[in-house]
């Protein structure tokens, strides 16, 4: 088994003024996966990425990134980064922004040129490449930001709110690019609050709350663990039937019965009961918990645990 691209333990960050932004994060990100880091505002998502990209110095950090200790500057040659609210100098054109990023990554301009062309085409900015960044919309800036993050052909790509300000079409394109990157064997680490976007591409997720990981794992596993069966009947469920269903652990709402559990056996007694009471069953389907529901539940639980 290949070692994880990111293997973090005890990542802590205490800012001046004793604000504890990260409280001992432990994470593993497998190679070739799309990893989503979620969390409410101020949870510490950007702080973690900034520590990994050496923009912020950790108070404590154990573990490795691409096989080297976090903070090892030469390793940054193998990573790409699109910061949140990236601000590119307005006096540069889109092409110059990507070239600047290539130059700082140590790629000579002659080698960078074809790659820059290719990336500008990939993000749909080829026709705007010579225009100054100050004339770009937010979405266009994000596209250029994505191109500059990819210019050094990174093995690990950090995207902090990559779809921020991007229109639906652009979001779809970014999703496709992320998919392509994954199929090329790259690892993509995405920070986002757009859960529906992430749900479509992520393999693994971690949920941060107040500087701590409150849930982490395979996305399918996490949502499956809270799988439900949804039974829809033809007419509204009466009070008497609803009480009987509740006795069997189900919840009801209008014409819908919800039963928690991944195993189909749990739903059989409910079907029997409904049929015995003459209810006409229209549909039965397993229903996964959405990422948004998982996220809200995890954050709410974390808050409840912290409450005095």
């Amino acid at each position, binding site marked *: 088994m290949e070692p994880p691209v990111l293997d973090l333990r005890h990542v802590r960050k205490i*800012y001046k003024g004793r604000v504890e932004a990260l409280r001992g994060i432990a994470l593993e990100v497998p190679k070739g996966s799309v990893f989503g880091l979620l969390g409410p505002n101020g949870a510490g998502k950007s702080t973690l990425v*900034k520590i990994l*990209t*050496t*923009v*912020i*110095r950790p108070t404590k950090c154990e573990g490795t990134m691409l096989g080297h200790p976090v903070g090892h*500057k*030469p*390793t*940054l*040659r193998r*990573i790409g*980064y699109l*910061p*949140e*609210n*990236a*601000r*590119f*100098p*307005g*006096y*540069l054109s889109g092409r*110059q922004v990507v*070239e*600047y*990023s290539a*130059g*700082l*990554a*140590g*790629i*000579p*301009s002659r080698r960078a040129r074809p790659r820059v062309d290719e990336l500008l085409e990939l993000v749909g900015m080829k026709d705007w490449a010579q225009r100054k960044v100050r004339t770009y919309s937010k979405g266009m800036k994000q596209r250029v930001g994505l191109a*500059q993050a990819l210019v050094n052909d990174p093995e690990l790509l950090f995207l902090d709110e990559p779809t921020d300000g991007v229109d639906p079409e652009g979001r779809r394109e970014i999703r496709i690019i992320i998919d392509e990157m994954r199929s090329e064997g790259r690892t993509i680490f995405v920070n986002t609050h757009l859960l529906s976007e992430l749900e479509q591409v992520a393999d693994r997720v971690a949920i941060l709350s107040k500087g701590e990981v409150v849930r982490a794992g395979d996305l399918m596993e996490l949502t499956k663990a809270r799988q439900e069966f949804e039974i829809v009947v033809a007419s509204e469920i009466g009070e008497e039937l609803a009480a009987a269903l509740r006795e069997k652990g189900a919840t009801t709402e209008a014409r819908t019965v919800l039963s928690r559990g991944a195993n189909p056996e749990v739903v059989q007694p409910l079907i029997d009961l409904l049929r015995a009471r003459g209810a006409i069953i229209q549909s039965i389907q397993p229903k996964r918990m959405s990422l948004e529901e998982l996220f809200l539940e995890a954050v709410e639980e974390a808050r409840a645990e912290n409450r005095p």
Partner: protein
Amino acid sequence: MTAIVTLLIDSYRLLKARVLFWITLGISGLVGLVYLSIGFNDSGMTLFFGLIPLEHSELRRGSELAELFYIGIFTKFIVPLWITWIAIILGLISTASIFPDFMTEGSIELSLSKPVHRLKVFLTKYVGSLLFMFIQVGLFTVLVFLALRWRVGTWNPSVLWMVPLSVLVFSYLYAVVVLVNVMTRSTLAGILFALLIWFMSFVMNFVEGNLYTYAFTDAGKDDPEMQEMLKPWYRGSRLAYTVIPKTKQTTEFGDRMIKVKGKQGFSTEDFTGIIFGGMIQEGGLEGVDQVMRRNSGFYVIGSSLLFEGALVAIAAGIFCRRDF
């Protein structure tokens, strides 16, 4: 190396994008053109490419004094008034926002997340900002160099000393700007502190220079008791003067490096003698030259560079350790 070249190219692009860069360059071109328009003929000198003739018995085509006069206009008027005064102020205003802009959230990450050490990023950015002065003064001085050849017929590469010296003066002040920028992220505070240090340098130069004049030159020879009394004051003022950048004296150091008529060092006495003719007694301005030369070049530039180095080191230390 690729990263350094990239940062320097970026600095050049940034300066080019500033309106003040082009305004300063435009004024430099205009001043250069006016300088170039001064010429000499058989009966004296002319202004504005011969439009205004001025008869002069000494300042004529081929006369020895013509070269001295022509260089004097450059070193005594253009350098102190334009290059090391107005151009520096415009330069400071133009470059003072470079570091605050660079350190903005969303912008700094693009550079710091790359495999380049922070110190290298900082120092290259610092040196890149000095390009403003280098380009401005460099182009202007080359124009002066060519004008000298055209107007007085000599190639005088010693005038090119003004390029590194002007950039040095600018760099002393820019170090103040950068330190304040890094500490406060404020453009305005950077400019204000730099102007304050510049003013202090001017005052200290005035005090130390005058104490020297009356304690050590002929200006105070009539009162030996007073001279003796002033000597410890001079030593105290020199001590204080040592720790601040010597902007005026660094500029004046250019006079010492310029060669006129094959002789090293531009003489204020000779130059003023040409302008005012017999109005000034021979030897009357020797003291001025003596005061200008009172401190060695090693002391003037060395101590100023120490000041700059200390400020840059503190700023670099803060920059390298800061969480952005």
